[in-house]
């Protein structure tokens, strides 16, 4: 059976449906709109699942000039990313059905929401760097309307900031692609990379180029010094959009770096060079700084966004160590963080939807009002902090282990220290909401307490994501086994 047709459908069906939803003048009725968007998303997801399950499709779609080619190739790494995206995307979509009631212009929201899914699938299944770059730019442009959704001045300025930062990163990447096109032999992703043998005497130049590409993809991943857009842009979007932006879209920066370092260039090229040192330094700075800023932040969604900055750099730190164990930790953290962060953002959204409260200090007693939501929030938080047996523990264990094993001077012990301090800070900025939410203190007005639990449409995605956050950590072995297989091909 030919799976290429499913691949095309998984990528282009949501894009086509999204465009149709945007431009089709019908769909005035809310239920119809929800039905159409859910149905098109569901069908696309089934196609994507077919591709993921089979895992072998390969497709040369279009040659648009010389070596420039749109080429899809499903490989194990892409399957992991695609599976995570599919699950979380579906959850956030269900959540949106209720949440978006209090925002206007739902048609535009759902149109772009469906469209972006296709773009992300294309990124996961890209077979070469040009295709990846093409859809990477498309992702920037199509997520922009989600960020600017409420059209307030703040949102538009945040959108512009997002756009310009992202493009800046994309152009750094493009600069690298120009050079790799000549010196890497091929831009197709091959496990382990080419080692840049063709570069010959240009190794100094190549290091600069690779570093610029890391910085460029690092923009999307919120890596210091180009992280500033993230805490501005993610919180202004509607909550389900923030959830997928923070949980999934940032991961495309991570995937980009993995593709460049491990699938095109080859990890040996930068091992032990100044590039690795600089990259490790930047990630550790980001881990620490993100947590500190989150700790200081009073607006809940912004706090979560800063937390994303910090957590994504955990992943990047693991990649920068360039050893198999740390990389296992990184890829695990990709999966876990996607579930956890989207769960956190969705519960923040549920709180906003029901109470309108956005600041952390207003949330005293929130656990009494919305117990299920805050329980989900709590479990996800614990997973992020890294309390065993919840998921974060496993990934951090591997990260720390990989770091100690790597034998890189200073970083091998500094890394785990920073990770631990950051984990402490994570507990410090996430758990007070739970504590004050459930234990509001003696002077809390128990008489005026109203149950504000949101409806099942919002609670069920929360429950599922919180459940995944915990259970994936309790039973991680199949996943770890699969990831180890992938990583085995890279080193």
């Amino acid at each position, binding site marked *: 059976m030919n799976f290429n047709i499913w691949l095309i459908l998984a990528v282009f069906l949501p894009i086509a449906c999204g465009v149709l939803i945007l431009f089709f003048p019908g769909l005035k009725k809310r239920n119809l709109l929800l039905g159409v968007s859910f149905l098109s998303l569901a069908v696309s997801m089934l196609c994507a699942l077919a591709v993921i399950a089979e895992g072998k499709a390969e497709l040369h779609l279009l040659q648009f*000039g010389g070596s*420039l080619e749109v080429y899809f190739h499903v490989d194990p790494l892409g399957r992991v990313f695609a599976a995570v995206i599919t699950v979380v995307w579906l959850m956030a979509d269900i959540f949106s059905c209720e949440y978006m009631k209090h925002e206007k212009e739902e048609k535009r929201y759902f149109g772009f929401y469906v469209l972006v899914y296709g773009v992300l699938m294309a990124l996961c299944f890209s077979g070469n760097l040009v295709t990846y*770059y093409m859809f990477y730019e498309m992702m920037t442009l199509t997520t*922009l309307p989600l960020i*600017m959704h409420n059209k307030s*001045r703040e949102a*538009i300025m945040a959108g512009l900031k997002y756009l310009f930062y992202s493009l800046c990163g994309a152009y750094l990447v493009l*600069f690298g692609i120009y050079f790799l*096109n*000549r010196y890497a032999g091929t831009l197709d992703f091959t496990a382990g990379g080419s080692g840049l043998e063709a570069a010959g005497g240009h190794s100094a130049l190549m290091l600069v180029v690779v570093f610029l590409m890391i910085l460029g993809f690092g923009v999307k991943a919120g890596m210091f010094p180009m992280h500033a857009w993230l805490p501005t842009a993610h919180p202004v979007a509607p909550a389900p959009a923030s959830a997928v932006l923070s949980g999934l879209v940032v991961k495309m920066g991570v995937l980009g770096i993995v593709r460049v370092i491990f699938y095109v260039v080859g990890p040996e090229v930068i091992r032990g060079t100044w590039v690795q040192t600089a990259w490790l330094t930047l990630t550790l700075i980001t881990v620490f700084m993100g947590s500190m800023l989150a700790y200081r932040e009073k607006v809940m969604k912004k706090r979560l966004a800063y937390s994303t900055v910090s957590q994504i750099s955990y992943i990047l730190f693991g990649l920068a160590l360039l050893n198999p164990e740390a990389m296992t930790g990184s890829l695990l953290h990709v999966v876990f963080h996607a579930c956890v962060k989207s769960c956190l953002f969705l519960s923040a959204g549920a709180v906003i939807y029901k109470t309108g409260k956005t600041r952390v200090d207003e949330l005293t007693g929130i656990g009494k009002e919305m117990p299920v939501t805050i329980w989900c929030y709590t479990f996800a938080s614990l997973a992020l902090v890294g309390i065993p047996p919840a998921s974060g523990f496993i990934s951090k264990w591997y990260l720390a282990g990989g770091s100690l094993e790597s034998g890189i001077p200073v970083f091998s012990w500094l890394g785990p220290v920073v990770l631990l301090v950051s984990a402490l800070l994570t507990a410090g900025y996430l758990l007070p909401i739970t504590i004050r939410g459930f234990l509001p203190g003696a002077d809390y007005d128990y008489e005026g307490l109203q149950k504000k639990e949101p409806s099942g449409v919002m609670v069920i995605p929360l429950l599922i994501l919180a459940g995944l956050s915990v259970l994936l950590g309790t039973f991680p072995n199949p996943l770890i086994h699969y990831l180890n297989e992938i990583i085995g091909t890279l080193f």
Partner: protein
Amino acid sequence: MSQYWIVAAILLPILGGALTPVLPFRSRRGMLIYLEVLTIATSAIVLTALSRGTTETLHLVYFVRGLSISFRIDGLAMLFGGLVSILWPFAMLYSFEYMEHEGHEKIFFMFYSMTYGVTLGVAFASDMLSMYLFYELLTLVTVPLILHTLVREAILAVRQYLYMSLGGAAFALIAIVFLMVYGDTMEFTLGGVLNPAVIGGETNRLLFVYLLAFFGFGVKAAIFPMSAWLPQAGVAPTPVTALLHAVAVVKAGVFAILRLTYYSFGAEFLKGTWVQPIVMGFAMFTIVYGCSRAVKEQHIKRRLAYSTVSNLSYIILGASMMTPAGMVGAMAHMVCHAFMKIGSFLCAGAIMHQTDKKYIYELNGFGRKMPVVFGCFTVSALGLMGVPGLAGFISKWNLAKAAVESENVMAYFGIGCLLISALLTAIYMMSIVIRAFFPGRDFDGRSTEGVRDPGWKMCFPLLCFAAAVIAIGLCSDPLICFLQDIAAGIY
């Protein structure tokens, strides 16, 4: 045989245009049909002649022995002549609707048609002297077009334009004299005409002369110190700004530089000498300078004009690499930029025609009201930014590829300039698009009441150009192969 057709194509619009004011038209409609038929007939002749192809030279008039006005169809001429003859009928159609309320139509159309013939003359001239003749004519014949509105601003703009262009041409004349002395022939030959035996030890003098001529022709190509006239000339009616100041006139400058560099002095003679860094440096500076000015500018046409300044220097950057690949990149951007910029200028003109709004801050919320215009504008904007899948990406790819292949460190920085410029392009173009589609929450519909898309005569060219930008972006192989053949001297 074809070269006789070329002469016919040059003379037809000149004579036909000159007759416009005296012919007894019964109605405006009659005149418009006459003009459109004239233009299409000319284009048809040019394209037929090009498809027949011939390399014979036609000497039309001899001044003295060796000096003649002569025409020939070679690769670069095919490119420029073909480009102009494709664009002109569309721009003509557009101007019918645009000029309805501008007055003095007959005079306008007379010179507009004549410019067509003169531009073809520049394209098909087979030696330096013939090209010089038509180049000067081009300056003179476009003066009335800029002067059209007769406001004070226009008069000042024309004065600046005349002084700079004529002054520049004088410098170019110096080069012609030197080429007569040191060259084998005046005829354009790929690889240059200089005779090493005659040059002897006078290389530096010749290089200096090249520099003079480069900056002389650089006036029309708007290289930095001589770029001021171009934004000023934006007072002309939009069909003029769009076609002449984005394509015909300015590209004639670039075309002359390509002729000078690759067909007269020869890339091999210039490559690696002290003039190359100077030329490249000025191009790089102009790229960034033009974009920065565009970001600052609030008048929509002036912003686009500064964008042209920057983009013309992309072409010159390609030319200054002095390699066949660089020439391919330069020519590719010549074509791609033509479609993108004429498209965006025509959109700006459509906005001015429909609403009299000239400044970017007045465009809030227009996107919904003029979907065709802003849709096309968005395509051009994304194309100029270099989003993959659109024309701009292809030309930048080829420019950057040439830069990497040239292994010239300065060219690497040239790539950097291209990307900085791409980022600035995103800033100055996307801020218009976002303003139009996302006007902000406090926006009330009153300011856009009654605004709508213009009629088909304006919309049709816009849609065609947008389609061309996408088509080149998705299928560039035929174009690039053709350009590679030109640079290899096959045509």
